[in-house]
C-alpha cells in the first residue's frame, strides 16, 4: 500500500498505544471548559455552602455542652445520624445548585458538539461511542460527585475525627456504604438526566429550558396529582421526591411518602436506562439529514 504524501505534515513514526482511559481527555477538557465559563467558578464555590453548614453542625453536635446557649431544644436537629446524611444528600438547595451548575457547564456537553458538527471529529479518532459518552458523562460525574459524594464522605470523616473514636462507625457500620451507594445512584441519575437533555437539541438555551422545565414540571405534576388524588403515589411524578424516597431506603429511615421506596428506585433506574438508549441513538458519527 503506497504511503500518502501530505504537504507540510509530519508523520508520527511511533506506535499507537492501547490507552485504557481513552475517555479521560474528553472529561478533562469538559471540566476545564466548564470552569472557563462565566460565573461557573462562583456558582461552584457557593454550591459548597450547604456542605460547610453541615460541617459546622457536625462540629456543634460534638460540642453540644459548649453550644447549649444557642442550641436550646436543638438537640434533635443537631444529631448526626443516618438521617443527617440523608438530609444533606436530599437538600432541595443542593439539587437546585447542581441544576444551575450543569446548566452553565453541562448543557452544552452534547449540544455544542451537535451544533458545531464536532461529533464526526471525535469518531474520526480511534474512539468508540462508549468512550465518547463516558468522557462526557465524566464531566457531570465530576461535578455532581464533588458536591454530593465527596462532601458526604468528608462529613462522615469529620464526625469520626471530632468524636475521637469509632463509636459512630460501630453504631452505624453500614452508613458509609449507604452514603456511597446513594451518592452513586444520584450521580447516575443526574448524569443520565443532563446528557439526555443535552442530546435533545443543538441549542444550549433550549437544553437549559428542558433541564429546568422538566424539573419544575415534575414538581407541579406532583402537587396537582396530590391535590386531586390525595395519594402518596403522586410523589412518583417528582424528581426530587423520588430521590428522597430512594434515599430513605438507602439510609434506612422513615420514607417521606407512604409507598415502597423501591418503586422510586425502579422508576429512576428505568429513566436512566431509557436516557442511555436515547443518548446512544442521538450520538452518531454521521449526521442524518431528514
Amino acid at each position: 500500500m503506497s504511503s500518502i504524501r501530505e504537504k507540510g505534515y509530519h508523520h508520527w513514526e511511533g506506535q499507537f498505544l492501547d490507552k485504557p482511559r481513552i475517555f479521560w481527555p474528553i472529561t478533562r477538557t469538559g471540566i476545564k471548559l466548564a470552569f472557563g465559563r462565566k460565573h461557573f467558578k462562583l456558582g461552584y464555590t457557593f454550591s459548597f455552602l450547604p456542605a460547610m453548614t453541615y460541617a459546622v453542625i457536625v462540629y456543634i453536635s460534638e460540642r453540644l455542652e459548649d453550644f447549649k446557649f444557642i442550641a436550646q431544644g436543638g438537640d434533635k436537629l443537631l444529631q448526626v445520624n443516618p438521617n443527617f446524611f440523608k438530609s444533606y444528600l436530599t437538600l432541595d438547595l443542593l439539587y437546585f445548585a447542581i441544576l444551575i451548575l450543569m446548566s452553565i457547564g453541562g448543557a452544552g456537553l452534547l449540544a455544542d458538539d451537535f451544533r458545531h458538527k464536532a461529533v464526526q471529529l471525535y469518531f474520526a479518532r480511534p474512539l468508540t461511542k462508549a468512550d465518547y459518552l463516558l468522557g462526557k458523562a465524566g464531566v457531570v460525574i465530576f461535578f455532581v460527585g464533588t458536591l454530593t459524594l465527596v462532601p458526604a464522605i468528608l462529613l462522615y470523616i469529620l464526625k469520626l475525627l471530632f468524636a475521637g473514636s469509632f463509636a459512630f462507625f460501630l453504631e452505624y457500620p453500614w452508613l458509609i456504604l449507604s452514603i456511597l451507594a446513594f451518592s452513586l445512584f444520584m450521580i447516575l441519575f443526574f448524569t443520565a438526566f443532563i446528557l439526555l437533555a443535552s442530546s435533545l437539541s443543538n441549542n444550549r438555551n433550549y437544553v437549559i429550558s428542558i433541564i429546568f422545565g422538566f424539573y419544575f414540571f415534575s414538581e407541579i405534576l406532583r402537587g396537582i396529582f396530590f391535590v386531586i388524588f390525595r395519594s402518596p403515589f403522586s410523589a412518583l411524578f417528582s424528581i426530587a421526591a423520588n430521590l428522597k424516597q430512594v434515599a430513605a431506603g438507602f439510609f434506612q429511615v422513615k420514607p417521606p411518602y407512604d409507598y415502597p421506596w423501591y418503586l422510586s428506585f425502579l422508576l429512576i433506574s428505568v429513566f436512566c436506562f431509557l436516557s442511555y438508549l436515547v443518548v446512544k441513538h442521538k450520538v452518531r458519527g454521521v449526521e442524518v439529514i431528514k
Partner: protein
Amino acid sequence: MTAVIEARNLSRWYGNVLGISDLNLEINQGITALLGPNGAGKSTFMKILTGQLKTNIGEARIFGEKVWNNRHIFRRLGFCPEDDAFYEDLSGFEFLAGLLSLYGFSHAECNQRARQALELVELTDVADRKVRSYSRGMRQRIKIAQAIAHDPEVLILDEPLNGLDPLSKRRIIKLIKEFKNSGKTIVVSSHILPEVEALTSEIILIHQGKIIARGDIYFIRDLIDTHPHMIRVKSPHFRQLAQTLAGEDYLLKIAFEPSEQAVVFETHDRDRFFNRLNEIVLTSSLVIDEITSPDDNLQAVFDYLVGK
C-alpha cells in the same frame, strides 16, 4: 464625483486587539477585491460596511450616507456573510422569499425574485429541500442568492467562493462579472490570490488592519515574481538534481536536507525553473517524490511587503 463607498480614518478595535487601523479608501463601480491573510481586517471592514459593527474612529459611507443604523442604505446593498449560518428549518426557496419579504416586496414579487435568484445560482432543482440538507457548495450558493435577489446596486461578498467546487467557482465568477457589467459596485474579499485574479484587476491588500498596497493585479504578481521563491524537491537523486540545475542563471541559492533526501532551490523565476524541472524529469532517469513551495502563499508576499 463621490465614490460609492468611502472610508475615512476608519479604525476599529476589539478590546486590545486592533481590527482595522486608520483605513482611508474609496471604492467606485466595478469589482474591487480585498486581499489579505486570515485576521487581516477584511471581515471587520465588511461588517462595518454592512452595519454590524460601529467604528471606534472615523466613518464609513455608502452613496454619501453614514452606514450605522441607517436602514435605507440596505435597500441598495446586498451582503453575503462568511459564516455558514442559515435558518435551517426553511427550504431554499422559503429562505430566499422570506428574506425578500423583509424588503417590503409583495408576496408575488418575493416568489418571483426568489425563483430568479435560485436560477442564477443553479439551485432551482433543490429549491424545496430544507437548507440543512444542502451540501457545502449549495449552502454557499444560496447565501450568494440571498445577497443578489433584491437586485442591489452594491454587493459586499465575504469569501464568496469558499467551499465551492471549481465548476461552481467559475459560474459564480462569471455571475459576479455580469453584475459588474450591469453597473454594480462589488467588493469581494478573499485570501486566495488565483481566485481574485480571475475576478478583477483592482486589488486592495490588507494586512494587520492596514492597507499596505492598492493597485493592479499585475503589480502584485510582479512583486511575487521579484520576491525570491523557495521550492523544495524530495528525491532519492537530490544531489544529481542539484548538480543538473546548479548552472541555471535564475537560481539564487541551493540548500540540502540530506536527512530528508531533499534539496531547496531559491529562484526569482518560478516559471523557468518548473519548465526546466519538467524537462529533466522527462529526459532523464531522475525520480522525484515530492515538490512543495514552502513560501508559495500570500503570507510570504505580505511578509515581503511589510519588510520581514
